């Protein structure tokens, strides 16, 4: 395990016209832990994800991954450095089969990739649906597919955008168990989530954003009681 944070965000600002979606946000993510990123709607969480992954160029600030700057890189370059990301709205490739969805994201030789893909599909019990078009799968199945797809390139840092959204209890528990297992394997996970039970139960450290600024940081129990956080969600 290397020293120093795996992801560092320094004074990142992102504006859209007159709106400042992310405002001098700074945070550091240590490797091998599960982090939560919470905040009221519109607090800039997904925008921050987009800045990290290169989908949106940030206006100011630096983003470092394993010590190297990644701000300004195109999304595919960021992904290849070892950062994986899921989306709020599911983005599987509908006209590709479940298996193809996994095969297409890796450049490994076919046999190797196929083997790993089968394993991952088995892991989420989708292996019997591997030849089914992803577009024909149910919401929950697509969610699982997107989850294992992000694991195919074996990223070190995984950004999950609302993994619990629209997911039933059983499936959710499976996902949470999977996330914990990933952490145990040494991966770092940053989760944007609205479901507080998930955040409190899973995350070791939680960042709270409000109006694009980080207003609190710490273990879940501390955050829960932080007056600023309470005000951000319920006050005003």
């Amino acid at each position, binding site marked *: 395990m290397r020293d120093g944070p795996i992801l560092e965000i320094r004074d990142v600002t992102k504006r859209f016209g007159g709106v400042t979606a992310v405002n001098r946000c700074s945070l550091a993510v240590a490797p091998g832990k599960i982090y939560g990123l919470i905040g009221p709607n519109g607090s800039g969480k997904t925008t921050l994800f987009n800045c990290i992954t290169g989908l949106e160029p940030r206006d100011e600030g630096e983003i470092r991954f394993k010590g190297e700057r990644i701000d300004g890189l195109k*999304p*595919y370059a960021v*992904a290849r450095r070892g950062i994986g990301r899921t989306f709020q709205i599911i*983005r*599987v*490739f509908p*006209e*590709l089969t479940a298996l193809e969805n996994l095969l*297409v994201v890796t450049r490994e030789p076919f046999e190797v990739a196929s083997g790993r893909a089968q394993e991952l599909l088995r892991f989420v019990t989708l292996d019997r649906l591997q030849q089914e078009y992803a577009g024909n799968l149910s919401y929950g199945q697509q969610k699982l597919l997107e989850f294992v797809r992000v694991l195919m390139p074996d990223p070190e840092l995984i950004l999950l955008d609302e993994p619990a959204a629209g997911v039933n209890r059983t499936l959710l528990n499976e996902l949470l168990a999977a996330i914990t297992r990933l952490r145990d394997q040494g991966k770092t996970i940053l989760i944007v989530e609205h479901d507080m039970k998930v955040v409190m139960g899973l995350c070791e450290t939680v960042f709270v954003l409000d109006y694009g600024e980080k207003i609190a940081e710490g273990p879940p129990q501390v955050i829960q009681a932080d007056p600023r956080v309470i005000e951000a969600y319920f006050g005003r």
Partner: protein
Amino acid sequence: MKRAFLLGLGVALLALALYPLVATGYGIRFMLQLFMWVALAQSWNLMSGLTGYVSFGHVAFFGTGAYAAAILVTTHGWHWGPASLAGGVAAMLLALIIGYPCLRLKGPYFAISMLGLNEVMRVLVSYFEGLTGGGLGLSLPTLHASVQIYYTMGLAAVAVTAAAYFIITSRFGLRLMTIREDEIAAEAMGIDTARHKLYAFLLSAFVPGVVGGFFARDTGYIEPIAVFPLFYTITMIVMALFGGKGTIWGPVLGAVALFVLQELVWARFLYLHQLLFGAIIVLVVLAMPRGILGVLQERYRLPRTL
């Protein structure tokens, strides 16, 4: 099942190869043009069917190839075979120049930027009269080569269909398709979409350029309006759409079906014909977006790589 298909394919190819021995002049010309349309529709499919980036100006590559080849033949005495290949290269060059800026755009923006391309090529060709003969056109030395062109056009059609096969059954092809499915997700998963789009574009420009060269040799005379008509792009698109874009045999099917229709209707009713094409496009988009082949694939659970 697959073996029967391959056998049938082999027989068909053999028959086509032997056809000139028994065919009439009209028959050869008919098939020659059919091959040309198969090649064009399939080339369009390589780009637009797979990546979802609609090229509305694809005829520009055809015309560029035609002129490049014609100029090489008339001014530099090249043989029309190599000249046509050079035409393909010229078309690829054009694709590189245009593709580099325009492919950065999102799909619909790219499509519109391609809309103006064939007009610009027509204007440029008309302007550089010294080189291209301008509005007066370019005449090639007389040569009756229908049979040879039959074979070369046929070869082009086979080659591009084979290319389609290899691409669609490969991971490269899958990656191209992810661009169509969800470009943002594709990028987020580490696929360099810009480069892939460009590759597909270059590939899709080559054969139209070559075929343009054959066309120039075949008709013996080209002028700007003849080789840069919007109608050719429309026809390519209808054929690929109708047969089934994104598949291997779809464009072939569409080309055969609609070329036959064309021979029956177009000769006398040009505008009605084009009107029909417009209506077919509307119909396909609304009712069968994956074309005839798509319908068959659904019905009979055929493999996607067909």
